[in-house]
Every structure is written in structure tokens, then in C-alpha cells.
């Protein structure tokens, strides 16, 4: 990798846009062929994120089709989490972080002048790497987002909690002990609590940052099944280090890598099946075959 940047850098950035443009057209065509024509739910345009002077991701343009799972893969430090968190404005509370470029939700700018980040975060839910339930009962964990964000009656909240727990494939396991502490659940169950918690607010999209990396294989499979179920109703973007997982759950895969100045850049994006069988960029091939990262 050390010798490469010299040859890549001069043509690296302008090429990226072209390559990306081609990739998008192609991926949309491929999707159309597969019979699942999809509108674009989320989009980033020339998105760069800086932590003070350090550019963590540079010039990322990506489209996430509605009701599909898009996977972000790439080596550690390539800015996947940084990119993901830019989408629902989680960087807002970090004074060191600054975002340039655009994020569009249903074609509307997420970073628009009169856009309330609170509203954005309700529309785009997020699930984190480590299960992070509140120190509350199972029920309260799921109901929490509702109690302060909406004016629902007790009855309605109860229905939403049940719906969300069913949506997270957890209802049958916990329905008899909704008042128990969520911390008493297994890691996999806790993560599904976190998913249910996000679902209860009725978002349109879900961002998941390595949602299974702290879980065992069985729990991982359950979450993956769940994602296939959820994607019928939600747009999902998932960051994962697990190639098999990306192959199993995602419709679209985007590969990111660290550029010469350690900034994360997009290498290639396309339908998962093509990225894994026939990547166009040698770096993608190296990564997915396990030669790098």
C-alpha cells in the first residue's frame, strides 16, 4: 500500500466522481433489472466531515435506495461511522466536528437552514455498535422515545411498544416481563431492545453502526434476519466489518478506504452481488478477498 498513493492521488479525486456516477447508473439499472425499482431515500452529495483540521471523510456521494439495505464496508478508520453519523446529524453536538456538502432525505436537505436536527433524528433512527439500553425496564426503554417526543395516550404508547417489540422480533421473549430491567437481558436481546426503541419512534430509515459486532453468531443471525424483515418497511444503512454479513443482508454495498492523507474516501458502490463477485476496483477486490484490512 505504501507505494500506491503516488499513482492514485493525481487522478484519484476527479475520477472518483466519474466512477461513482457510472456506478450509480449501473447499480440503478441492475436494480431495475431485478424488478425492485426503488426511489432514493437518502443521499449524500460531496459530503466531507472534519474533526477540527483532520478530514475524516472526503467528498462522499452516495445514494441509498428506499426499502433496501445498504452496507458500508471498509477498513478501520476509513470513516464509515463518521459518514453514518453525518446522515442523522449526530455530529451536531460535537463542536470539533464540521460537515460540508449535502445530505438529502427525500430530496430535502438535512443540513438546511431551517431544518430541526431533532426532527431529522426522529425520522432517521440509529442503532449503535454496543447495545446501549437505558437503566430502565424493558417497557420503559422502548416507550422512552415516545414519552417525551409525542403526546400519545398511555393506550397508544402501549400499542406502539408492542408493535415495536414485535417488529424487533422480541415480543414473545419479553412480553411476560416487560417490567424487568433491560440490563438483565442478553446482549442480543439488548440490541433488539435498542432496535425496538428506534422503531417505536416510527422512523423512515435506520442507521446501524456495526450492530452485531458485540454479539455471538446466533444473536447475529437473528439480527440479520430481522434486518431482512425490517427492510420491507424501512430504508437501512449498515456499517459492518463482516463481509459475510454484508453479502447476506445488503442489497447495495459501498466500499470505503483511507486515502493518502488518512481521509476516508469512497472507492466503489454497487449491488452487493456485483461488488462481491465482480468488483471493478482492485482495492475492493483486495479488501473483500481479505488481502487488506
Amino acid at each position, binding site marked *: 500500500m505504501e507505494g500506491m498513493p503516488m499513482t492514485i492521488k493525481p487522478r484519484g479525486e476527479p475520477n472518483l466522481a466519474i466512477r461513482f456516477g457510472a456506478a450509480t447508473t449501473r447499480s440503478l439499472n441492475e436494480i431495475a433489472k431485478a424488478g425492485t425499482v426503488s426511489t432514493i431515500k437518502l443521499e449524500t452529495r460531496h459530503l466531507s466531515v472534519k474533526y477540527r483540521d483532520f478530514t475524516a471523510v472526503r467528498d462522499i456521494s452516495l445514494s441509498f435506495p428506499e426499502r433496501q439495505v445498504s452496507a458500508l464496508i471498509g477498513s478501520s478508520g476509513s470513516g464509515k461511522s463518521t459518514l453514518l453519523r453525518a446522515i442523522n446529524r449526530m455530529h451536531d*453536538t460535537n463542536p470539533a466536528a464540521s460537515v460540508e456538502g449535502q445530505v438529502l432525505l427525500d430530496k430535502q436537505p438535512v443540513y438546511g437552514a431551517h431544518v430541526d436536527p431533532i426532527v431529522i433524528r426522529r425520522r432517521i433512527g440509529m442503532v449503535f455498535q454496543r447495545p446501549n439500553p*437505558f437503566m430502565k425496564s424493558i417497557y420503559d426503554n422502548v416507550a422512552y422515545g415516545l414519552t417525551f417526543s409525542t403526546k400519545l395516550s398511555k393506550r397508544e404508547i402501549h400499542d406502539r411498544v408492542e408493535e415495536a417489540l414485535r417488529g424487533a422480533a422480541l415480543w414473545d421473549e419479553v412480553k411476560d416481563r416487560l417490567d424487568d430491567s433491560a440490563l438483565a437481558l442478553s446482549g442480543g436481546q439488548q440490541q433488539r431492545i435498542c432496535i425496538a426503541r428506534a422503531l417505536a419512534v416510527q422512523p423512515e430509515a435506520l442507521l446501524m453502526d456495526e450492530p452485531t459486532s458485540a454479539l455471538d453468531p446466533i444473536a447475529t443471525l437473528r439480527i440479520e434476519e430481522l434486518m431482512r424483515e425490517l427492510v420491507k418497511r424501512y430504508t437501512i444503512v449498515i456499517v459492518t466489518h463482516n463481509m459475510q454479513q454484508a453479502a447476506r443482508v445488503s442489497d447495495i454495498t459501498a466500499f470505503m478506504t483511507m486515502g493518502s492523507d488518512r481521509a476516508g474516501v469512497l472507492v466503489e458502490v454497487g449491488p452487493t452481488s456485483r461488488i462481491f463477485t465482480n468488483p471493478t476496483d482492485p482495492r475492493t477486490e483486495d479488501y473483500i478477498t481479505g488481502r487488506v484490512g
Partner: protein
Amino acid sequence: MRTEISADSRRIRLGRQLQHGDLIFWIVALLFAVLVVVLLGAIIAVTWSGSADARHAFGWHFLTTTAWNPVSGQFGALPAIYGTIVSSIIALLFAAPLGVMIAIFLNSLCPAKLRMPIGMMVELLAAIPSVVYGMWGIFVFIPFFRSYISTPLSKTVGSALPLFSGPVNVGRGLLVAGIILAIMILPTIAAISRDVLAVVPNSQREAMLALGATRWEVIRHAELPYARAGIVGGMMLGLGRALGETMAATMVIGNTPKIHASLFQPATTAASLIASQLPNANTDLHSSALIYLALVLFLITLVANSIARALVWRVSRTGSGA
């Protein structure tokens, strides 16, 4: 034979764990730990034996009677107990919300540049000697309090609410003492709350944020519940300090061992009664009664601390405790 072997092997294991400096360190640590216990025992023993006369003379009635008359040899601790507890509760009522708000401000609302200086200033409050607080109380706060708080209050609601009834010209009294105590325990509560709020895991904050919580909701629903145990602990530490505070209370409370309904009237606390009377207690019974009072004060703080422990324990066991 067998027990000998096992005792031997245990000794070997212990020996392995306590190599070289470890053993010395272990002994030194043990010594200090024992010293604390001995010290505590000695204090209890001295107050117990010193208070023997008064305990025999008054028994439990000491706790329930109100007369405090060194001349006639009548001693009842109720006014001092009342003053101690009420002034401390007043202090806590003012200092607790204020301290937590300061902590929240320093942690999540304050511009980064001001965080250090303001935090240090709050902590500096704890470094001011209590006699200075007392002086400030006498020269600054009491005149202010009399002109702007006690006089208007007693004139308006004083006749309906005995709590605020006059006369107010003395200035020194229970409420003034409570407020001065509040300022004194504020840094304890603020500093501890700030520290425990600072260690709330970011994952909790982000979980709340990602649900679409406002900044206030993140504080209210993620940070405060998580930090509750520590905050309660800070409050109880503050309460402990207020219960035992002597100098400032003595200077501003008026040192009158009487129970008044009005918070504007002079009162006394156990600590200030002891401090002001022990030097010139010229009968054995008088000094014995004061030592008895010290024993009672000791018990009060012990109870307050136990309640704090129980609270913290319960809160930390059930998580948020909500």
C-alpha cells in the same frame, strides 16, 4: 496432619501473594485501617463517659425537653436538635437544586473556555474559612436579608404564616443560618454532581439523542438518572457538613436555645451551642450536658449518613431507581 498441610499451603499462597514490598504495604494499610476504628471507638468512649452525669440526670427526656438553663441545671436538647436539623434541611433545600444546576451548566451548557474558571471558582467557595462566611453573613447578608426578605415577608404573609412572622430586627436566625450553610455546602454538591455527570457514558447520551431528544431531554432523561446515585451521595455529604458546621452557624444563628415557629427568629444548633457554652460551662452537669449533646449530634450525623448510604445503595442497585 491434614489441617496442618492445608494451613501450610494457605500460608505459602498468602506468602506468594504478599511478596517483598507487598507485605510491608499490607501491614501499613492494615495499621491505618485499625487506627480509624480505634479513633472512632475512642471518640464514642469519651463522649459516652463524659456525658454520664447528664445521661443519668435526664435520660431520654434530654431529647424531648426544651428547657436549657445552666443556672437552674435544666438541660433539654430539643431546641438544639431542632435547630440543627431545620437549618441543615434549609441548606440542602437551597443548595441541592442550585448545585445540580451548576453541575449541569458546567458539564453540558457552558462554553469550553469558561468551564475551567467557573468550575474552579465554585470549588474555591469550599476553601473559604467558615469564619469568613460568618463575617460575611453578619456584615453583608443579614442587613440585606432584613431589608429585602424578612421585613417584607413578615409584613405581608407573616400574620397568616407563622413560619415568616416577625419580629425581624434581630436579623440572626434559622433561615439566615440555613442560607449561609447552603452557600457553604454548594461547592460540595456542585463538584460531586459535576464529576458524576461527566462520567455518564457517551453511549447513554447518544442513545437519547438518536431518539430525537433535545439537549434538555438528554440531560433530564439520560444524564441525571444515570448520575442520580452519585448526586444523592453529594447531597448527603453536603448535609453532613451542614449538620456539623459550627463557626458560621454560631455567628449567624443567634444562639438562643428556643424553638420558634418563625424561621426569622434566633435559634441554635447543637454544634454552635457546644462551641459557645463549653468554654464557660462552670458546673459539671453543664459540661456533661454539652457532651451529651455532642453524642446526640454524632448520632444524628450517623443516621443521616446511614440514610445516604441506604439511598445510594438502593439507587445504584436498581439503576435509575425511577
